[in-house]
């Protein structure tokens, strides 16, 4: 419970104190949540090895059947860790003249996201899922450039429509429980016929597909990322997308396991198509943010495909990649924010030659780029390896097509790095304050650490993933 409340309290503090408190203090304060997450982990570490979703907190909310239940296991822990690592970083990237409202909004969003990852009650999951949408909507709306209204409203409606479908599915399951309870255990025990499962599962998938986003549902994404302030893009791509991927593993698959085999081929095709599609579009983008947006499309497509291969390595690789993609993409947006702040442009055709201005910045930037293109010894590699392997196991053709990402990703990532940093420059630049690079340094450190020792994360999630896979297997078993 304190994991959810802590960011809210900090947000309130900021809202009350206003300008008296600057972003660095906020950033440091928000690390408190990270501390709490780790504390809970060490309290529960023994129990987590069973893989069962531990209950941390449980109180009636709407009524006895709709409870405020918080769960905790390896998967949850990993995502909470991601959220609480990223939030201070995102906060520290806020530029000085606009921190008044954006920081509380980010913190509120963090709180909601923490709730989503811990929610053990169907309706609670939905409510927090929606709640997380509100701060990001306002972040994008308040701090976007012109013409942003249409983009943000489109983003909002798309995701909202998807989540309403999920709500319908949840209610259907709720009515089917017999005990009319929204608890995870009750929902997971519901037995559906194939037709029901397809409809219910379709609702879930729609919500997740929009948010992930899978290819036909990605229309909102590029514009939103481009128009949103860097912090918005960071929160969106760094954590928000993970919500949907998490939802696939935790909610869709165990709850509607009967429908997986029905949707699997279509989702695989969409996801793998998205991998190539996003990568190809990213090849020639000149707007750095748009480029990252499309690359993100490509990366999450890979994760989705991995998850839908329904193999242990796909799941674990997917989880790992969620974490690393969160770190990397936030790193990249951080870099863009720095470049845009100092050079007043993020257009690749105008940038260039920034490398000579600040060596450390160049190195850190390059490390993050390497992480994104999954070079060995960086964090992108192990996840991508496991994902590609699982996709290849599912079908060698999809594996090969998805594998194109390692080529295309290298092409556009290096192009971006090169056009922005290398070459000769005529740009007048402001001096980059080295202190500002501290968060980027932390990101790079994580990139390398995970690159060297991904097993430490796998160990955390392994029991939980196995437990979830058992649930999925049970759920599918009903059919046969």
């Amino acid at each position: 419970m304190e994991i959810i409340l802590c960011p809210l309290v900090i947000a309130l503090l900021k809202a009350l104190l206003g300008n008296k408190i600057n972003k660095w203090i906020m950033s440091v304060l928000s690390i408190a949540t990270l501390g709490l997450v780790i504390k809970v982990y060490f309290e529960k570490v023994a129990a987590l090895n069973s893989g069962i979703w531990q209950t941390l907190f449980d109180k009636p909310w709407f009524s006895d059947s709709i409870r405020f239940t918080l769960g905790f296991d390896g998967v949850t822990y990993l995502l909470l860790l991601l959220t609480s690592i990223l939030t201070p970083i995102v906060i520290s990237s806020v530029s000085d003249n606009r921190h008044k409202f954006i920081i509380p909004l980010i913190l509120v969003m963090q709180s909601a996201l923490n709730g989503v990852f811990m929610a053990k009650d169907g309706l609670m999951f939905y409510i927090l899922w929606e709640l997380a949408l509100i701060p990001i909507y306002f972040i994008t709306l308040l701090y976007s450039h012109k013409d942003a209204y249409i983009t943000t409203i489109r983003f909002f409606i798309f995701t909202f429509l998807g989540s309403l479908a999920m709500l319908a599915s949840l209610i259907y399951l709720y009515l089917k429980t017999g005990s009319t309870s929204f608890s995870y255990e009750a929902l997971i025990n519901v037995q559906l016929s194939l037709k029901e499962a397809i409809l219910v599962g379709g609702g879930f998938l729609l919500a997740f597909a929009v948010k992930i986003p899978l290819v036909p549902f990605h229309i909102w994404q590029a514009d939103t990322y481009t128009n949103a302030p860097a912090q918005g893009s960071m929160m969106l791509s760094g954590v928000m997308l993970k919500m949907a991927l998490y939802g696939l593993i935790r909610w869709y698959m165990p709850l509607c396991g009967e429908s997986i085999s029905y949707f699997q081929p279509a989702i695989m095709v969409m996801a793998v198509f998205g991998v190539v599609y996003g990568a190809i579009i990213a090849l020639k983008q000149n707007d750095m943010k748009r480029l990252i947006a499309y690359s993100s499309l490509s990366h999450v497509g890979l994760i989705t495909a991995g998850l839908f291969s329904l193999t242990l390595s796909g799941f674990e690789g997917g989880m790992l990649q969620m974490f690393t993609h969160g770190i990397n993409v936030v790193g990249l947006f951080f870099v863009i924010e720095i470049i845009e702040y100092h050079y007043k442009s993020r257009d690749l055709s105008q940038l260039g030659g920034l490398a000579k201005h600040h060596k450390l910045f160049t190195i850190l930037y390059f490390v993050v780029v390497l992480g994104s293109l999954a070079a060995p010894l960086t964090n992108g590699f192990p996840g991508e390896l496991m994902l590609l392997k699982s996709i290849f196991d599912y079908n060698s053709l999809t594996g090969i097509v998805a594998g194109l990402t390692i080529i295309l990703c290298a092409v556009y990532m290096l192009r971006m790095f090169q056009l922005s940093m290398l070459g000769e420059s005529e740009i007048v630049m402001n001096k980059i304050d080295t202190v500002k690079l501290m968060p980027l340094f932390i990101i790079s450190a994580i990139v390398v650490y995970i690159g060297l020792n991904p097993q430490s994360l796998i160990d955390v999630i392994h029991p939980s993933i196995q437990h979830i896979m058992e649930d999925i297997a049970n759920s599918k078993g009903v059919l046969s």
Partner: protein
Amino acid sequence: MNTLSIILGLPLLGFIINGIFGSKIPKSLSGGIGTISVFLSFIFSIMALPMFIENPEYTIKLDLFTFLSFDTFNLRVAFTLDRLSLWMTLIVTGIGTLIHVYSISYMKEDEGFYKFFAYLNFFIFNMLLLILGSNFIMLFFGWEGVGLCSYLLIGFWYKNAEYGKAARKAFIMNRIGDLGLLLGIFMIIQQFGTLEFTTVFEEINKGTVSVNTLNAIGILLFIGAMGKSAQIPLFTWLPDAMAGPTPVSALIHAATMVTAGIYLVIRCSALYVLSPIANEVIIWTGLSTAIVAALIGLKQNDIKKVLAYSTVSQLGFMFVALGCGAYTTALFHVTTHAFFKALLFLGAGSVIHGMHHEQDIRKMGGLKSKMPITYYTFLIGTLAITGFPFLSGFFSKDEILTIAFNHNIVVYILLVGSALLTGIYMFRLLFVTFFGEYRNQHYAFDKVHESPRLMTLPLMILAVLSIFGGLLNLPHYLQHEGGILQNWLKPVIGLTHSGQHEISFNTEMILVSIAVLVFVTAFILTRMRYISRKQVPQEQTPTGVLGIISNKFYFDEIYDLIFVKPFETMSIWLQQVFELKIVSKISYGIHDILRFFGGLNKKIQNGNIEYYLMFMVIGVLILLGFNFFN
């Protein structure tokens, strides 16, 4: 302390020290650190040698920690030093040391001096990772790592956008190969459930796996090798990679990294022995590369480009050997090639240094007198590569030719042609650069100078090696119990069927004579043209067949046309048209449809109460009508 960890750790240490403190310490110190770390690594490898000589089966293992465990198996960070990897380690660290020494002087004036040494050390580390890794993933780590270092080093002078493009091209071409390798690895996982070399090869030797699967794995792995070792169709990056500083070209693009593909195939010899189709693919790819690259080399005017194409061509030779199953021979050629190609590159670097960064051979000439050491060492290198009898290249190339003859006469003839071309372009290079008259107006002949001692010393050492390198694996007719290398590798490469035993001494002698004849022909032809007639390569691009050759068979343009352009066009089209015009329009279209209905409602809601009443009555009618019909 495990020997292995020292061998591996020293270059890494050098990298870290140079990387972090490089900018703070003086250049000589950072150069020294870089060199010494590699040299010590070399020394430790040599120190390990006696144990290996005593016991053919001896291996050193280093098992660190689990990198990743998924599904049913663990991927461990583990290293193995056996005879094969020791051989490679010696080459890498040995040549590496020389090139480090050379670089201290060559890069003296560069502002990124410490960075350069950091990269070099990191490269050596990655190369060792590749060689010493005890499973495919470690190999892949090193594999990608050297690609990365190659990217960094090619694009070392980052302010030049062209160099950056070349670096990117190298990285991407390598990545294409990497994809093949990765897919091969996945297939191995599927088939064997493990990635440890030893286990995999044991499984293969049991013969349970179908030939088709092995062929498929073999070809996929070979695609990886194609990328790294610059074979057709993935070879175009290597000549472009010459954008990097010359020591880099010598180290990475001649002596070590490009041979990673050869190493991979040798390492997987157990697999390739059993996959005939993969072997055929390797032979023909290697052969065509050998010929095409040699042809292009004929018409190049950049001193480093000629050497680059020569490298590609020689790698083709090695692959032909591999395809024929002569793994020892290939490794032998790797070794000798490392000697003389490093020598040639460093010599070229010396020339460039002396000419103050002039690389066009048309602007050289007559350097013999000004740069004697460079000239003589370069001469030795040229003779070695063109197969002057009893120099290192003679033996190794001759072995390959013999094996090719044994395998397929057509392959042999084509390969001989390629060897002839090698002779021609190498002598052309030598003659045009060092003989004749000085032709550069912009840089006075007087200013041309011999390189400092630190640069010529490695040249001399390499020259010696190039001369005597052949001793490492003397052919059958000189050493009956088989060459040193052949015996050395026997425990590692189980099933070798080298061709030597199967042909008679006479045939062998004929083959040797042909090889010598080829050398002589090449020498005479070139000498006639460039020394006797004092011809100089023309400025303007030739037409016809020669035009095609001098334009590198338009490989770059064709790739541009069929891969790069379509992707770029598609990228722009997808974003500008598909995303914005079509997909986006659909979402707005829904909005528009809704707005259209909203507009319809505006017509109904027209403010006139009569209409309202009428619609209300119609509503009542519909409701009542519903009741009536229900």
